[in-house]
């Protein structure tokens, strides 16, 4: 058993933190739009958003790997024009995670916005407030459980990703070797002791995160009534 190295965990949390922030910024306007629109293309967009839930991570990973490599126009643009290599780097990993965790941010937010009393939003418009002021002052504060669920689950889901990360990032220590990949490697070299410790840490963190979410939601439900 080698000496424990916590760098993979730090990398996992860094990746999850950055992904969560980026996703919140992207998903907030999209989920709001989805919750309010009667556009007939809405089901198509919802289906695309939900794809990462059902796709095998290898399929998603393969497409992202291809898109980011110098074989695709996008990858070539990044590499030749901007001088940024996207494959097997932390930046590439962030992009892959954003796709992978997208539905976990959009769906709770959209569900939260849809459950809001429409009259409450209209009362805000009538009070002279625009959409942005209404989202931040009325909508988000009244869907706190959904908001917390979206943030925490996105973070936790990104920490827990494996297949996509392995395909897009490989396993470069300090760059793309996150906790889940590190465990896989311990098992491959039959270092079960380290694999046990890493796995136990992941299990404990995941449980505590989920417990926190459910405790918070129970508290909120008691405070604001069951309909929240």
């Amino acid at each position, binding site marked *: 058993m080698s000496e424990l190295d916590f760098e993979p965990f730090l990398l996992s949390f860094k990746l999850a933190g950055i992904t969560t922030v980026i996703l919140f910024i992207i998903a907030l306007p999209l989920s709001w739009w989805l919750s309010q629109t009667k556009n007939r293309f809405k089901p198509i967009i919802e289906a695309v958003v939900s794809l990462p839930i059902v796709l095998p991570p290898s399929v998603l990973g393969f497409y992202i790997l291809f898109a980011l490599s110098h074989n695709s126009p996008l990858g070539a643009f990044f590499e030749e024009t901007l001088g940024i290599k996207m494959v097997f780097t932390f930046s590439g990993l962030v992009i892959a995670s954003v796709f992978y965790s997208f539905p976990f941010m959009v769906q709770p937010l959209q569900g939260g916005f849809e459950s809001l009393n429409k009259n409450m939003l209209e*009362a805000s418009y009538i009070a002279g407030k625009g959409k942005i002021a209404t989202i931040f002052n009325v909508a988000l504060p*009244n869907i706190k459980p959904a908001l917390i669920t979206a943030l925490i689950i996105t973070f936790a889901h990104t920490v827990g990703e494996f297949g996509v990360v392995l395909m897009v990032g490989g396993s470069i220590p300090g760059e793309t070797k996150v906790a889940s990949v590190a465990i896989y490697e311990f098992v491959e070299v039959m270092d079960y002791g380290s694999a046990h410790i890493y796995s136990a840490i992941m299990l404990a963190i995941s449980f505590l995160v989920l417990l926190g979410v459910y405790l918070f939601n129970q508290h909120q439900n008691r405070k*604001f009534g069951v309909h929240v």
Partner: protein
Amino acid sequence: MIHLDVKKKLHGSSGDIELNVNIGIQEGEFLALAGVSGSGKTTLLRILAGLEDARGTISVSGIPWLDASKKLPPQHRKIGFVFQDYALFANMSVEQNLLYVKKDKELADHLLQITQLGELKNRMPNTLSGGQKQRVSLCRALMNRPKVLLMDEPLSALDPQMRTKLQHDILSLHKEFKTTTIMVSHDPSEIYRLANRVIVLEHGNIIQNGTPKEMLLKTKGSQKFTFKGELLDIIKADVIFIAVVAIGQQIVEVVLDANEAKSFKIGQNVNVGTKAFSPSISHC
């Protein structure tokens, strides 16, 4: 002065109807909007608020709110809206609900005082009773000193005592602010007490337009009073018949002769009135 001439197709439970309303409303008027459900009352209110699209024109004190080329968004219409379900901001205290509309603490304090909510100003909406919530909603609607106050069955979810209290509040606020008010209501006593004009909608069209006195006092000719009721039963008692009629929550008996008894059917709606002598009122 409000000029309103709007048309809109509605998909109601009883099929498609065309809302077609053309009215003028004087400044400071208190207009009651009545009619069976599905007749387009709420939609008309929402069109006025800018919450729903419609064809036609709306102008308020010479400013166009709606015409063929544009629709003024609700944010710029300077209206107050009281929803049937209160629609208070659940994340804000009573006072914050008012100040969110306009940071005018003096007006907020004044409104809360008139409606006797001063002591509750730091409470959250979910800790209030229905009547208290609706009073907060009423105060909130007046915070931007609206040109038009729209109320969609504001008192229908409240018990009779609370209704009377709120009718009193609405009346005193209307006297003080002189806001042109349009209220959807089904309750004749409420309409009589508050409104100076009633409009009745049916299938999207105005079928009646007049003062509450003309429209609600149903007495005809020499009738002294009359009540609408449902004929529950006709009982034969010796040579006469007794009709049992339900009027609101009360049951009354009226004597009929044999011919009259034949002309009525159990279950039909009837008017109970008297002509021969003046009614008297006693304490109950």
